[in-house]
């Protein structure tokens, strides 16, 4: 059945032999008629997000950590009109700083927290940092994301520890299982297991004959029991939570989300998020799962780890070619998962997004989404690079349309196309007047079987406006 697919050439966008110099060139990027793009700042290291103060000045956060286990210093930078960067605040060794927003005179930053756990930070314009909440379960594959401030609350996302609920060999490769051998996913409410668990090598010992059995929501090498109840807790994994702006404990908004990364309110006041879907890795790989744009309905469970985009993982189309079908691990479900607003490219890493709202930019109400691009082969195989562009989504009918893409015979990052276009757009944000769409481009990340190599100093901030020719 899958013989042909198995031998097809795999071709992820990170698959480059040499690291080229980054030379941004707007004419290598295609936009719909009437729009133009320019580079605003270059030489950024792992930039992840952007916010604006009351005067409309842009501030970029540099993540300070990247997949590939690269640590640098997380920073909040003010971008001057001439592109110069002025450091406002710096973090310790607890990146990645994944998101930033500005509200009533302060910045709010989600600190991924690979080493010390996730946090939400408040940073005043003088650079003083206050921790609003700490100890978020961020030691694993996915981290603390968001935030947005609305109606007196800071909303944030918390990614899961694992790909699909079960700690395994892939987590050793990520780097954290050695650091945190007891870490695992935490449900937000009680879940009942159906008893399915997964046999692997015991990767925490050197003995090749030593085997492990691991169940979902459990530490590595802890088997599951039929009808075992895992108690829900807060804070939890794979969820949207919120804390009062005045401080206080985490409250649950929604859960059952794998890695809720981007977060934005639509002009009509609805909360949306982007979810990075399953990879083909670990003990419980799931194939063909598209990233999702979801509208968040408070109190709802969105399906992880037994559904993808509202469909059960054991239904047609999620079986890894040449391997078995993924099987459910939960005995019952809190609710039927909702229907997605839009399904985006498999492995596109659809991340930060924002809604258009000005007549001068046009496209009012459309969601503009930055696609970081695939990390094949680590996430699974792709036949062509996926992502590396800006798409827009009509939230009424789910139609996804390319908006800003690299020119070339094929789609892919600039380093792969040998051009001066986008590398890995990680966030987009409209300026406060809505007339300019800023694009935070993380920079070059080489991904091969042997290594994940993010390249310092290759990040770029772009801006798109309408009214060119």
């Amino acid at each position, binding site marked *: 059945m*899958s013989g042909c697919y198995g031998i097809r050439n795999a071709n992820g966008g990170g698959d480059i032999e040499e690291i080229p110099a980054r030379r941004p060139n707007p004419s290598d990027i295609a936009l*719909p008629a009437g729009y133009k793009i320019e580079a605003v700042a270059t030489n950024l290291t792992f930039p992840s997000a952007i916010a604006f103060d009351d005067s409309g000045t842009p501030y970029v956060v540099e993540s300070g950590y990247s997949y590939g286990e690269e640590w640098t210093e997380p920073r909040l930078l003010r971008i001057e009109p001439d592109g110069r960067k002025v450091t406002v605040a710096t973090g310790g060794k607890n990146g990645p700083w994944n998101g930033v927003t500005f509200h009533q005179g302060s910045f709010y930053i989600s600190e991924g927290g690979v080493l010390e756990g996730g946090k939400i930070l408040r940073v005043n314009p003088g650079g003083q940092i206050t921790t609003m909440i700490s100890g978020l379960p961020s030691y694993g594959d996915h981290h603390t994301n968001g935030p947005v401030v609305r109606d007196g609350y800071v909303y944030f996302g918390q990614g899961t520890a694992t790909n699909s609920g079960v700690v395994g060999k892939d987590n050793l490769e990520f780097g954290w299982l050695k650091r945190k051998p007891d870490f695992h996913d935490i449900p937000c409410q009680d879940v009942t297991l159906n008893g399915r668990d997964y046999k692997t090598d015991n990767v925490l010992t050197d003995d090749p004959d030593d085997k492990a059995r691991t169940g979902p929501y459990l530490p590595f090498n802890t088997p599951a029991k039929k009808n075992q109840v895992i108690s829900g807790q807060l804070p939890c994994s794979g969820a949207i939570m919120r804390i009062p702006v005045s401080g206080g404990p985490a409250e649950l908004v929604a859960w059952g989300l794998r890695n809720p990364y981007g977060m934005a309110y639509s002009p009509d006041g609805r909360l949306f998020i982007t979810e990075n879907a399953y990879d083909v890795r670990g003990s419980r790989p799931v194939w063909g799962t598209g990233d999702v744009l979801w509208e968040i309905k408070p109190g709802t469970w969105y399906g992880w780890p037994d559904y993808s985009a509202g469909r059960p993982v054991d239904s047609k189309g999620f079986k890894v*070619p040449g391997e078995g079908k993924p099987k459910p691990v939960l005995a019952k479900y809190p609710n039927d998962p909702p229907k997605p607003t839009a399904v985006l490219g498999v492995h596109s890493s659809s991340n930060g997004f924002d809604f258009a709202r000005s007549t001068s930019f046009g496209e009012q109400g459309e969601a503009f989404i930055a696609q970081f691009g695939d990390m094949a082969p680590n996430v699974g195989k792709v036949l062509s690079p*996926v992502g590396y562009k800006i798409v827009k989504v009509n939230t009424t009918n789910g139609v996804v349309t390319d908006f800003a893409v690299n020119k070339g015979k094929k789609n892919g990052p600039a380093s792969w196309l040998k051009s001066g276009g986008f590398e890995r757009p990680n966030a987009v944000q409209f300026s406060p007047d809505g007339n300019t769409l800023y694009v935070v481009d993380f920079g070059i990340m080489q991904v091969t079987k042997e290594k994940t190599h993010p390249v310092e100093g290759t990040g770029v901030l772009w801006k798109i406006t309408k009214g060119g020719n």
Partner: protein
Amino acid sequence: METTRNNKISLLGTLLVSLLIVFASCTYRRSLPLKGPLDTQTASVQKGEVIFMEHCQKCHPQGEGGLGPAINHIPNPPKRLQIRLGLGAMPAFGKDQISKEELDNLMAYLKALRNNKG
């Protein structure tokens, strides 16, 4: 047994597709920023676009390659075959998932996309 049968169909399909690829242009990219809006904007094309987004976009973004191969150079008859039979690693889509009418609309969209050469 299932495997052999499918491999045969797959081989036939591939042959058919390869034969028809004489019509292929040199790039498979057809999307808005590169080629402008679709020339054909009938109600059927618009409905077909929504079907494409629900069932195909994630693996063939804008008809380009991704998890699956590019499909913008392929004419409609072998595409229809591929959708119903799901040759190779791609899942098949039965009438319960995509009705006959929806498939016709999807085909109208795929044709408009394929012909959108700027």
